[in-house]
């Protein structure tokens, strides 16, 4: 049957199981939006800025495992997506971005709202397309979804000129995909699996470092099997949090710059790292040449380019985490690492996590812990980037799989609110808590309007310290307390919320923390809590940039502060 390019696009989206799209329209994508009226099964959520459309699509994708879809018009609409696309790229999130483009005869003429978005997004997408003919729309969409969700997932952008949206072609979704350049390796090589099993058998101080790949691959059970059978403690990366139950006896926290002290010390002391679906990011490893000095490394990852990129690997296994672990678990033998576990218990006792100091002021750590206690951990937590993010990761115990949605690789402030929106759409039956900082919240708070329009019951908790807190912490520690451009004048967030008809409370006393969280929970819709927290509270533990994990500080240390660190990210 002959259809317009727009109709073919909508039909194709439906074939891919898409039922929701986040976006904003404009001149070059008007025909597609006009066509949406014929497809009520695709719900369109109008955001207030395109960046939010991309983050919302990512939030949706991360809670559902299905690609999230966002639409934007050409020019500024498309460029506004860029931060969200880059965020999805670095955190391996399947997002399909559809952008309108000026009609074909105007391309290359610097027409109104024309921009080379495929050129701009080339290094931040897994792949991108400009569709030059309606007859290629179906095939392109099919390829785009296949590429976005398979292998190491990532964002794919499809740019469609306005006239292609209007012209007609035959719609046929049975087109075969021919992608000779795209063959992700799914199964781990058997001989590598055997080598890995042998190393695991020989190790006396093994640790597992579980990353986002475990969550993406839905390999919770396989990871648990491996850990339990071999009595190997599981440490996660920041994005690996909630890949393994936080209160499991073998859970040993998470590593990295603000990871738990005992986790970092365990990695430093171990003799074998079983790295699963993680990429040895600099925030996780800290100084690479001081990273786990006595450890051999088994690295399981679906992306061959990650193997050996940052850390030397003894046994690389390229493949899908779930598949690889399933097979690996057949080769491994049951063992006890009781001496090692005992040693770790001692480390843990010396470096306890979750210590909240007594204070008259509201400490953000206390707020996070109280949110955890009030929800019983039965919630999806979405955070932005900065101190509040680290406290959320440290003081909330994640037992349920895939319940922490946070911006890791790109570190995008302002991710929290739109991503929470997407998470709430993807998990309508779940409590979604958006934990925000006062700085990041102001970067995307226009989305309160979307939340109200769509009646999304997101609970927003702002850790308001009146600073760009993480940067202020660095200024305090490494730049002589010269607080250049970090003090923030904040609006009255309660009044802001009220302007959007969102109920809100200012919380200024410690004794009001619990009752206010309770009120937010009992309210059926969106609720905003503005916690006025201790303005100069710092995030500890901290591995200072340029230090190794073993040099983790649980309180400030002068000599560490004075190191030159101009060459550290």
């Amino acid at each position, binding site marked *: 049957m002959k259809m317009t390019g727009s109709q073919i696009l909508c039909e194709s989206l439906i074939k891919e199981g898409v039922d929701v799209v986040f976006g904003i329209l404009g001149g070059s994508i008007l025909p597609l939006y006009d066509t949406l009226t014929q497809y009520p099964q695709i719900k369109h959520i109008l955001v207030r800025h395109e960046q939010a459309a991309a983050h919302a699509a990512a939030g949706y994708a991360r809670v559902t495992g299905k690609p999230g879809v966002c639409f934007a018009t050409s020019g500024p609409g498309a460029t506004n997506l860029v931060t969200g696309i880059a965020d999805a790229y670095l955190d391996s999130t399947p997002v399909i971005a559809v952008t309108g483009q000026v009609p074909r005869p105007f391309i290359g003429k610097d027409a109104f709202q024309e921009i080379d978005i495929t*050129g701009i997004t080339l290094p931040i997408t897994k*792949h991108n397309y400009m569709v030059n003919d309606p007859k290629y729309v179906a095939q392109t969409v099919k390829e785009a979804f296949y590429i976005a969700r398979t292998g190491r997932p990532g964002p794919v952008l499809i740019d469609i000129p306005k006239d292609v949206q209007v012209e007609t072609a035959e719609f046929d979704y049975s087109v075969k995909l021919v992608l000779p350049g795209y063959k992700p390796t799914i199964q781990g090589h058997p001989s590598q699996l055997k080598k890995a099993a042998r190393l695991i058998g020989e190790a006396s101080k093994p640790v597992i470092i579980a990353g986002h790949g475990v969550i993406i691959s839905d390999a919770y059970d396989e990871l648990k099997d491996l850990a339990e059978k071999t009595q190997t403690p599981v440490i996660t990366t920041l994005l690996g949090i909630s890949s393994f139950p936080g209160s499991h006896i073998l859970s040993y926290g998470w590593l990295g710059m603000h990871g738990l002290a005992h986790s970092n010390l365990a990695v430093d002391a171990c003799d074998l790292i079983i790295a699963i679906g993680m990429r040895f990011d600099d925030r996780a490893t800290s100084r690479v040449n001081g990273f786990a000095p006595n450890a051999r490394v088994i690295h399981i990852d679906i992306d061959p380019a990650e193997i*050996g990129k940052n850390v030397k690997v003894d046994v690389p296994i390229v493949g899908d985490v779930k598949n690889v672990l399933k097979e690996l678990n057949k080769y491994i033998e049951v063992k006890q690492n009781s001496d090692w576990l005992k040693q770790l218990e001692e480390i843990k006792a010396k470096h306890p996590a979750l210590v909240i100091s007594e204070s008259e002021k509201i400490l953000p750590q206390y707020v996070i812990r109280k949110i955890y206690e009030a929800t019983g951990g039965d919630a999806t937590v979405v955070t932005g980037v900065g101190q509040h993010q680290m406290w959320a990761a440290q003081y909330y115990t994640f037992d349920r799989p895939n319940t922490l949605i946070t911006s890791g690789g790109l570190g995008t402030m302002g991710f929290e609110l739109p991503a929470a929106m997407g998470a709430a759409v993807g998990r309508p039956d779940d409590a979604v808590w958006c934990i925000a900082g006062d700085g990041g919240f102001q970067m995307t708070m226009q989305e309160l309007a979307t939340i109200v329009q769509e009646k999304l019951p997101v609970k927003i908790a702002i850790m308001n310290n009146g600073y760009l807190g993480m940067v202020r912490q660095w200024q305090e520690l490494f730049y002589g307390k010269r607080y250049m451009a970090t003090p923030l004048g904040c609006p009255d967030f309660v009044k802001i919320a009220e302007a959007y008809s969102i109920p809100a409370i200012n919380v200024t006393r410690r004794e009001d923390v619990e009752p206010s969280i309770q009120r937010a929970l009992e309210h059926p819709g969106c609720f905003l809590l503005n916690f006025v927290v201790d303005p100069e509270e710092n995030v500890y533990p901290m591995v200072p940039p340029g230090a190794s994990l073993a040099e983790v500080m649980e309180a400030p240390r002068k000599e560490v502060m004075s190191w030159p660190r101009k060459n550290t990210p």
Partner: protein
Amino acid sequence: MATQKHTIVALVIDKPGVFNRISSLFRRRGFNMDSIAVGHSEKQNISRVTIVVDGSNVQVEQVRKQLEKNVDIVKVTDITNRDTITRELALIKVHANSTTRSEIIQIVDIFRAKIVDVAPGSLTVEVTGDQAKVETLYKLLKVFGIKEIARTGYIAMTRGDNASI
């Protein structure tokens, strides 16, 4: 880290934007390509690219893997340490007059290169060969004054029965 010249051969899908994708990756890693040559391969809709680049083994291996991740790039091989034939073609327009012309022709003959154009003030030489041959001829002709040079960039193939890639 010690660097050396690497010869990378890639098979890529013949469609717009592929070269942008390749060069973008090299740019990101701060590599300057010494030469890049492109042409059809033995397969339909697949082009063959030969890139010569300077870098350490680790750096070049990382670029190779990143290139191979690209959906439009089918396969990438580093053939640096294999027994290969590499060739480049150059056109060199060299100053010539009645006193220098015969000397130039003699040099060109020694190199089994060809004179492809003769004009009152110049000779145009076509030379094909590996890096040493082209560079040496260039140096010898430089004495007479080079008006213009155009080079194709290197193409490479491994010796023996098997295909390079």
